[in-house]
């Protein structure tokens, strides 16, 4: 087993409700990666009009 630290950036569009955010994030982890720990590091609004946001996630993973 090998451990890694990874950073993922995801666009969070308005049609994904906050109650679905956790599952949305998990479903976007790279394939074949097992998660040990993750958290949202930062959220930036990238489009004020559409309220689209960019989420940065830090994670510790293993293969």
């Amino acid at each position, binding site marked *: 087993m090998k451990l890694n630290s990874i950073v993922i950036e995801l666009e969070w569009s308005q049609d994904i409700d906050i109650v679905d955010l956790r599952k949305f994030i998990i479903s976007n982890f790279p394939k074949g990666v097992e998660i040990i720990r993750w958290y949202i590091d930062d959220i930036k609004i990238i489009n004020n009009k559409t309220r689209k946001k960019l989420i940065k996630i830090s994670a510790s993973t*293993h293969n």
Partner: protein
Amino acid sequence: MRNLPTIFIVPTGIGCEIGGFAGDAIPAAKLLAASSGCLITHPNVMNGGSLSTVDERIFYVEGYSLDKFARGEIGLKKVYQQRIGIIFDSGISNEMFHRHLQVADACTATLGINVETYVRTNKPLGVVFEDQASGASGGYIENPDTLIEAGQKLLNQGITAIAIVSDFPDELENKDITLYREGKSVDKISGVEAVISHLISKFLKVPCAHAPALSPLNVKEDLDPRAAAEEIGFTFLPSVLMGLNKAPNLVDLPSSDKEITLLPNEVRSIVVPSGALGGEAVLACIERGIPVIAVKNKSILKVDSGKINYSNIIDVNNYFEAAGVLLSLREGIALKSLQRPIKSFKNFQII
């Protein structure tokens, strides 16, 4: 009065003003336990090096398992006492190893804790520090398999809770540590500590917690009081053993076990620093519509209520207010009744 089971989180390694040091969120945990009657929290909150506290209302649950609990995957079952085993990183110096053995003796002789046996890893764990871009502490270990293997040996002997003691490299004696001891920096080792204990929780599914083995530091006269609990002994193991002594068993759900003490669907609120709303436990609670009490507690993260569109976030200024909110929820006193101005009822017609 009914209890209001509440999860209390102060994330590791993000430099929280309260809870970012050596168990300095314990007073807040005691206050929240008193106001809620039932608090589920994690070692980063409860471990203060040589110091901790014991409170029947507090469930001591390692972070990975706490996330699972928040996701509804496990229940918590109180025990009279755990049978504790210790994993020692084989990289620890002989002197530090014996210091830790004496902690186990002390906890048995003085506190009545059942520390039964220990194992040394076949290979050194190989702790590596790695700062995150945000400044949060992070890192990994080079030999995770040797950690799991050692833990499995303990379980094979009937051990029910695991303390892990890892060797941390002396490269820590640098500017970051000095700043941490002065209360001006994040705890640089806590990110790796979380990875180590999460691995045990993930693969072995038992209560666990981690203590770093660090060479003694020279006395520092301008030490921040919040870091002092890590300076008054040779090891950080006492608080870990105190926490694990009565840590609840973790029961996979669904389960036919009738003796589960606390189920995830009994949780009624979660208390977190206001800038740390992006953790998995918080998002899992949001999925279930649970009130999130976001406490002003400065850290390097800025994931706050302005960035999370959730109507059930209650922003408060400090842990006194958080305790008041919990007590109000517990007593069935509407929060709006205590706030001013109060909007007239005539404005609330559904059209």
